[in-house]
């Protein structure tokens, strides 16, 4: 019962009721609590929604494929009546009075909101390790596939201390879907935040074209690059959710008016002989793990052996895209974070001497180092004397990067094929050896140029690594060719037959893990 569409069919046929499905997922959420995927579990809300969904099914009035389906939402999307924190002290206790448009669309289709998932604070990070509610653990750390490989390694330690990160910043959403606690989850994608954890957690992570899906209610990081992202266990599910979410929103003037096929059903590609796949040569970097390089190469070979044309293309400004992203991102962040002053919502400090002192102290207390660092960097680049040399310069480089993609597509390429990440998921203890900015610069390398150009992209899990961990590859399409991109991705998914995560031991062992954690925390206190 992994696929959303299959469980939806089961609901329609009465093989399972929405309440049973909801209970099952709630129970799994409880069992996997140690993953720390959820910040808020909206149990009562979900059960009530399940009840209403059940009534609709009984009366033969189901709303569609999403009716009665448990979903989760990243905690930087506003949800009416449900705390929305962005994993930050600044918004702890903040209860939005409205739903983000994408959340509303899901609810209007009868989806069950299981809860709000964990992330890096304000979606800044590539590990889901920097939020105030703690890091998210990758369910694959507890999979049979990974543990069996580790037993074979004489140097591996026993116990839970070397659990793996999910990637980020939508790590909570990825963990939630990967651990079967929901059938789809919303993430956000500004530099790869949906695709990166998808690759590390063995999921489909889809980033729509900029302008296709409304950002109203998505607490903004970089207005010119943010998009809501979709995490599912298979491509058809992602397409279905996209069909629900896509479309012009009068509340978001950056959404386009182009008509979208609704519902979005992907055709099955009979053959790929008419397809042209582009391999950007600049993406072959020394830091890329040899395993992923080899899988990338095999994927290209697969397309070629099935009749597709596979050519090398050049995106010459690739090496500058991380720097460009760094400047533009921090600059927009400096602006977007200015709204948090403690006055109308969010955290407020106790100082009452002056407005300035109150704002400064509120922001010092509310934001973590990563957020503050980006605000200060952004303000530096936006200083009058720096504006031309940094911000405007970066905007010019952005155009060059976007043009690189346009040129590649104009040369006859339909879809680009690249790695998603440099390596498989790493242990948390290793990940935190470098600071957030360094990590983000490293980990976003294949994903953020796509955000700068506003293109659609999707990470598809291809195979398990030698350590038994998921590896994903990325497909990038032309702007607003999301459906075509997903069609190619669906074909590829069928070819590679990525294995299902085996978590049975996890369910049995989770109580043991909780015990270990308690013991660990006791020993730390001594």
């Amino acid at each position, binding site marked *: 019962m992994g696929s959303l569409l299959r469980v939806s069919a089961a609901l329609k046929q009465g093989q399972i009721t929405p309440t049973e499905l909801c209970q099952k997922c709630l129970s799994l959420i409880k069992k996997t609590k140690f993953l720390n995927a959820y910040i808020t579990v909206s149990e009562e809300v979900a059960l009530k929604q399940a009840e209403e969904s059940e009534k609709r099914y009984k009366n033969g009035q189901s709303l569609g494929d999403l009716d009665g389906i448990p979903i989760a939402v990243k905690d930087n999307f506003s949800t009416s009546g449900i705390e929305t924190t962005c994993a930050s002290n600044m918004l702890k206790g*903040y*209860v939005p*009075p409205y739903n983000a448009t994408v959340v509303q669309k899901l609810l209007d289709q009868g989806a069950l909101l299981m809860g709000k998932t964990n992330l890096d604070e304000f979606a800044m990070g590539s590990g889901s390790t920097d939020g105030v509610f703690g890091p998210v653990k990758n369910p694959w750390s507890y999979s049979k596939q990974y543990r069996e490989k580790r037993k074979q390694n004489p140097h591996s330690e026993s116990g839970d201390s070397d659990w793996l990160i999910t990637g980020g910043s939508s790590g909570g959403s990825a963990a939630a879907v990967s651990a079967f606690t929901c059938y789809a989850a919303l993430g956000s994608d500004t530099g790869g935040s949906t695709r990166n954890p998808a690759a590390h957690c063995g999921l489909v992570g889809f980033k729509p074209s*900029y*302008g296709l899906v409304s950002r109203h209610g998505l607490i903004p990081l970089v207005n*010119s690059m943010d998009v809501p992202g979709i995490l599912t266990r298979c491509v058809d599910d992602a397409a279905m959710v996209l069909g629900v979410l896509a479309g*012009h929103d*009068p509340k978001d*003037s*950056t959404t*386009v008016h182009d008509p979208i096929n609704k519902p979005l059903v992907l055709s099955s590609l009979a053959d790929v002989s008419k397809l042209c796949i582009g391999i950007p040569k600049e993406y072959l970097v020394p830091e890329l793990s040899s395993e992923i390089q080899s899988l990338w190469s095999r994927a290209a070979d697969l397309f070629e052996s099935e009749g597709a044309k596979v050519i090398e293309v050049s995106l010459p400004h690739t090496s*500058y895209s991380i*720097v*460009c992203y*760094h400047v533009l991102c*921090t600059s927009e962040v*400096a*602006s977007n974070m*200015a709204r948090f002053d*403690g*006055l*109308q*919502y969010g955290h*407020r400090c106790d*100082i*009452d001497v002056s*407005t*300035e*002192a*109150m704002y*400064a102290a509120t*922001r*010092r207390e509310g*934001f973590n*180092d990563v957020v*503050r*660092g980006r*605000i*200060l*960097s952004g303000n*530096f680049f*936006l*200083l009058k*004397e*720096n504006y031309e040399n*940094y911000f405007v*310069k*970066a905007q*010019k*480089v*952005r*155009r*060059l990067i*976007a043009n690189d993609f346009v040129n590649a597509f104009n040369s006859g390429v339909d879809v680009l094929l690249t790695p998603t990440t440099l390596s498989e998921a790493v242990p948390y203890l290793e990940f935190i050896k470098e*600071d957030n*900015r360094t990590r983000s*610069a490293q980990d976003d390398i294949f994903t953020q140029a796509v955000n700068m*150009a*506003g293109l659609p992209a999707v990470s598809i899990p291809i195979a398990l690594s030698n350590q038994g961990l998921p590896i994903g590859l990325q497909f990038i399409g032309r*702007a607003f060719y999301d459906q075509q991109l997903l069609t190619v991705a669906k074909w590829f998914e069928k070819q590679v037959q990525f294995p299902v995560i085996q978590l049975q031991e996890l369910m049995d062992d989770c109580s043991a893990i909780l015990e270990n954690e308690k013991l660990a925390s006791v020993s730390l206190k001594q």
Partner: protein
Amino acid sequence: MWARALWLGLRAPLGGPRCFTSKTDPQGSGRITAEVIEHLERLALVDFGSREAVARLEKAIAFADLLRAVDTDGVEPMESVLEDRCLYLRSDNVVEGNCADELLQNSHRVVEEYFVAPPGNIPLPKLDEQEPFPHS
């Protein structure tokens, strides 16, 4: 240039125009002087908090300096990937609102229908009037 407008807006309540002499190297080599620190802290209303944070900013600037190597002669800055499209505005009809109560509920300090702020136009103390990095 809404980012710039917001920056100007944020400066306004801090007691009017100031004459900050720019101490940043015209090439922006990233040497952060005390004056720049103070200037940024007032603009951002976020403090550095520690020497590590200043070092991190210097690294961020050095990183950004890599952009100089790109030849952008004749290239127009790109503000939005949707620049070739029309922006559609909503018609000017009031269709929602009247939610003052809901909005006021999220604030910590409210009097009737007002958000309560401490007095404004009081500048933050100068850097030499406070301890360096009191919160490191």
